[in-house]
Structure formats: C-alpha cells, structure tokens
C-alpha cells in the first residue's frame, strides 16, 4: 500500500501527471504532524471514508517529513497556492502556524484544527478527540461495566502534578454517584515510570486483597499495572483498565489482565475532522460559539466559547477489536 503510494508519487514527480482531479470536486486537505505515523495514516483512512460518504470530495492527505512547524508551513503554503477548499490540520505548533493559516482564511479557505490545536486566531474551529468530562466518566464506566455487583477499585495515576490526569480523576469523582456500589479505595502515583508504576500496582494488590479493578488513566501506568496483575497471578480477579495504546495493550487484552481500555479512535477523528471541514466549507454550518454541527455517523458536536468541540467518548478497545488496531498505533 505504502509502496504503491510511493511509486505513484514518483510517477507524478517524473512527469506522468495527468492534471488535477475533476475541478468540481471539493478538495479538503488533511495536514498531519508528519507523514508515516500510524495514528495519522488511520486518520487519513477515516477522512477517505467521510469523502466517500459525502461524495464529490477529494482528500489531500499531506504533511511534512518530520514534525516541524516550518515543514507544515511549506505544506500549507502549497495548499493555499492550489486553492484547496478546506484545510484540517493537526498542528506541530500552536502559534507558529497562525500567520500562514490566517493568510489561508483571507483567501477564502476554510481552516480547522483537530487533535493538536491551533491558537484561536488561526482557525475557525477546533475538534478535540474527547473532553475531560467524557474521559473521567469513561474510565470509571470501564471498571464498573465488569462489576455489576459493585466492588473495590483503585486508581494508578501518573504524577501528583500531572494536569491531565488530575482533571480526569476530578471528573471521575464527580460522576461516582452514577455507579452505586463502586468504591475508590486508593489513589497512587507511578510517576509515569514503568518500574515505579509496577511497584505501586503490586502494592495496591497487597494492601487491598479484595481489589477488583485498577484504573490507570495513563498509557505507561496501564501497561505496568497489567504486567503486575499477570505476575501476581491475579488475572481474572483484578481487571486493569484506563487509557492506553492498542499496540502496547494487545498482550494484556490477550492474557485477560485487561478486559477493556479506552483511547481516541484515529479513524473516527479523521472522519469527523473531514465532516466538520466539509460542513463549514459548504456553509451548511457556521463556526460560532454554541453552534451545533452534524458530523455524520459520529452524531453532532457543539462548539464552546473558543469554537472548540469534543468529538465523542473515548473509543473502547477489547478482545473483539484489538487485533485491527494494534498495528495502527
């Protein structure tokens, strides 16, 4: 697949170019941090899916060779020159892209950011993969789903000062009332170090023999906790869940140390970014605070006062879909 793509590009470069695609097509450029990253290749797949669903849309999947703002600016300049209809960018730098993207908007191009945002002045809307409240709810729901009769859970976080994790745990605590019978017995910190997280997880199982689940809202902690559970011979007894990467968690899902975990789905993200860009470029929707915009099969999003929106709940990965995603990211 990659090789064919490369060969096509070489062919194009060699002068076998046949002219731009049908001019009536709407061209949406998906600009990523760098080419050759599994996460973004998957997002491009989602974008193609959206294009097929919409019809008459051509996706230009592009980005620099390495994750630099200068590289992205060169790419965006060439997109402006081609007068594409919309640019959806996952930015390498919040601020450095602003002057170039402003120029794009002045020339009538719809600009949105997704995944990694651009400062407000440089885009019309921003699409976050999820929101803090949705993540906080998801991590406790993942544990509760496998504990119909309630039980003891513990949290293995990153550091005491990790902003993201602290917000998510706060949000989780807010919705604890919705999960009766579930009790958080302890919160420990593995500092996002594999060995410390492993020791903390082991310690949790020793001090709470009745422990039913460990929630690790960090990709380092969740892997270490799964390993600790497997090594303690407690697979089936203690369920490890939280936020992790499919490539790193495939083993834990296979062994049963983790029944399920969550993280954003890059395919959905690419799909939604394309849908949002299309909605704004066709003027079917306007980017303004409070606007509700439909993003196809992903439902609808609502823009907040900074014109940002959250796409959806984090996507749940378990034995049924892990194989498809573990090679992606």
């Amino acid at each position, binding site marked *: 697949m990659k090789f064919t793509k490369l060969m096509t590009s070489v062919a194009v*470069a060699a002068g076998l*170019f046949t002219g*731009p695609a049908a001019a009536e097509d709407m061209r949406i450029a998906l600009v990523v941090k760098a080419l050759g990253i599994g996460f973004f290749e998957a997002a491009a797949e989602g974008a193609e899916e959206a294009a097929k669903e919409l019809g008459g849309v051509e996706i230009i999947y592009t980005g620099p060779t390495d994750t630099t703002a*200068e590289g992205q600016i*060169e790419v965006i300049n060439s997109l402006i*020159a081609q007068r594409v209809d919309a640019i959806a960018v996952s930015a390498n730098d*919040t*601020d*450095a892209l602003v*002057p170039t993207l402003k120029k794009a908007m002045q020339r009538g191009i719809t600009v949105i950011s997704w995944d990694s945002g651009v400062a407000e002045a440089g885009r019309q809307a921003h699409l976050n993969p999820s929101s803090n409240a949705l993540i906080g709810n998801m991590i406790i729901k993942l544990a509760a789903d496998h504990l119909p009769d309630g039980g003891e859970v513990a949290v293995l976080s990153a550091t005491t000062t990790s902003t993201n994790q602290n917000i998510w745990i706060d949000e989780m605590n807010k919705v604890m009332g919705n999960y009766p019978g579930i009790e958080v017995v302890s919160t420990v910190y593995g500092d996002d170090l594999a060995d410390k997280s492993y020791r903390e997880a082991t310690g949790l199982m020793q001090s709470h023999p009745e422990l039913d689940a460990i929630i690790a809202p960090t990709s380092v902690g969740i892997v270490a906790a799964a390993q600790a559970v497997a090594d303690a011979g407690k697979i089936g007894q203690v369920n490890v869940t939280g936020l992790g990467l499919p490539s790193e968690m495939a083993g834990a899902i296979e062994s049963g140390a983790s029944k399920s975990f969550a993280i954003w789905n890059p395919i959905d993200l690419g799909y939604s970014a394309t849908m949002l860009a299309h909605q704004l470029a066709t003027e079917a929707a306007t980017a303004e605070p409070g606007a509700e915009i439909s993003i196809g099969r992903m439902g609808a999003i609502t823009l907040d006062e900074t014109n940002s929106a959250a796409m959806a709940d984090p996507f749940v990965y378990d034995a049924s879909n892990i194989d498809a995603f573990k090679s992606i990211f």
Partner: protein
Amino acid sequence: MSHADTQTRHVPDRLRPSLYAHLVGWESLLLAVAVAVFVFNAFASPYFLDAWNLSDATFNFTEKAMIAFAMAMLIIAGEIDLSVASIIALSSTVMGLAMQMGAGTPVLVLVGLTTGLLCGAFNGALVTRLGLPSIVVTIGTMSLFRGVSYIILGDGAFTRYPASFAWFGQGYAFWVISVEFVIFVLLAIFFGILLHKTNFGRMVYAIGNNATGALFSGIRVDRVKFVLFLMTGLMSGLAAVCLTSRLGSTRPSIASGMELEIVTMVVLGGINILGGSGSIPGVVIAAFVMGLVTFGLGLLNVPGIVMSIFIGLLLIGVIALPRLWAIWRKRTV
C-alpha cells in the same frame, strides 16, 4: 588587511586553471536545471504561474540562502559551521526574552543579530584560537546553543511579538516582492562582490587552496577565518529575525535540521566541500532550484519523503554529471 603584496599577487580562485571552463559549465548546468524545473512546474500545475504563489514559494529558501552565502565563503576557506540552525534557535529565544522584558522591534532585531554574532565569535574563537577542527567544534555548539534554548523555554513558547516585528518575515516591499526576498537579493549582491571583487575574497580562496601557503604569503589566516565565522553567526542571527517574525513565535525546536539543507544548497551551488573553489552566483541559482523543486512538488502534493529523495538525486546528479562528462570526453579524444 594592509598587506600591499596581496593586491598584486594573482591567487587563482579555482583548484586548477584548466578547471575554469569546467566550473562555468557547472553554473550553466545549474541554470539549465533551474529553467527545466520552472518549465516542468508550469506545465505540471495550473497554480504555479501565479505571482502570489511564486512569491510564497520564495519563503522556502530565502532564510536558508542568507546563511548559505556566508556558509559558502566559510566552506571555500576550508571550514564549516554546522551550528547555524541552533544559532537561529538561540537568537530567537533571546529575542523572546527581550520581548518579554518589553523591547520594541528595533531592539529585538539588534538583540537577534548580536546573539548570532556572539555565537559566531564563540565558534570562531574555538577554531582559530584553540586550533580545533571546525566540524567538531560546531557539532558541539549545535547541541550547546539549542540546549540553552531548551533550558530557557522547555515546552513553552514566546508568542506575543509586537505587530511591527512581523514586517521582516510577513511584510512586502512592493507588490508581491517580500521584504525577505529583498534582503536575499541585497545579500547576494553583497556577498558576490565580497567574494569575487575584493582582497578579502581573494584571501578566502587562497586559504582554502593552501592555508600554509597563504600564511607564508602574509595572509592572517586565523583572522580571516574568525571574520568568516562572525559573518556566518551574524547571518544566522538575521535568519532568526526573519524566521521568528514569519512564525510570530519561538519554540526551541525552531529551524531544526536546517543546517543540512543549507550545506546541501551550498554544495549544489558548486562550492567544493573540501574548500578552494566555488562562486556566489552558483549558490543563488541553487537556492532557486531547491525552492522551485520543493514548491513545485508541493503543488503536486508529493510527500516530503519523496521530495528529499528528489533533492538527493539532484545533488548527486549535478555533482556527478560534470565528472562523467569529463571522463567521457577523455575517452573519446
């Protein structure tokens, strides 16, 4: 440089006089490549022949070319500076600090240029005073300068540059001619005269061909080299002003990897990487070739990886062709 004898002595600016015609051939070859790339682009993309698009395209090379001119002279003198991109990072960071202390645009520019100059002086002192090889020194300072930026900024950024500061990187002198492009043209003329029409330029060639011989001819080799490092530092500071102004922000990763693109531009321009020969017009054409190739391929949405392959092939091709030509002619004669 008050050595009267250097004014009358003829110091050849090429390795061997017989190579003269050859090198003229190089520049014509490059020019032919530039024209070919231009024509190809014009046919391949309907968006290429547009004044504003071409103007945007110049930003792909103007900042790099500013440094490439000074780098060309440094390489002709047999030295190299691989820390230039890191000097940009440090200059930009120091400008950011000055901006936070409330400095206005003129002060910011002065701070950026001075930081570049000091970095160049540091490199130059290590090479000329301590006699260290420049490639080792500048690989060291490459990490050092950028490291300092990382310490100052961490994962943060300086953003609130004054509006008037944007003039350097985003402003236009007239119509589609950007301020950066004007600076590029002025510097091309300046360095062209400096290298090809002054005693200083002659000395640079002499040092590159035979540093010991140059020393015994009364050329203060270390002083000339020090001045070249100063100029490279100063040009890096200038590029930092332009790039920071264009991005409107500073992050420690700014301009990362740019040093190799600059060296590529210099070598593509026909400067002998071992020192002793080359010309500024060659570098000017090479800047255009690289800018046109990356922009043209960008218009066709060719991925950057393929673009790097293309630049690599171009570099090897342009360097190998004259050699192959020479071998072929020897055989047929």
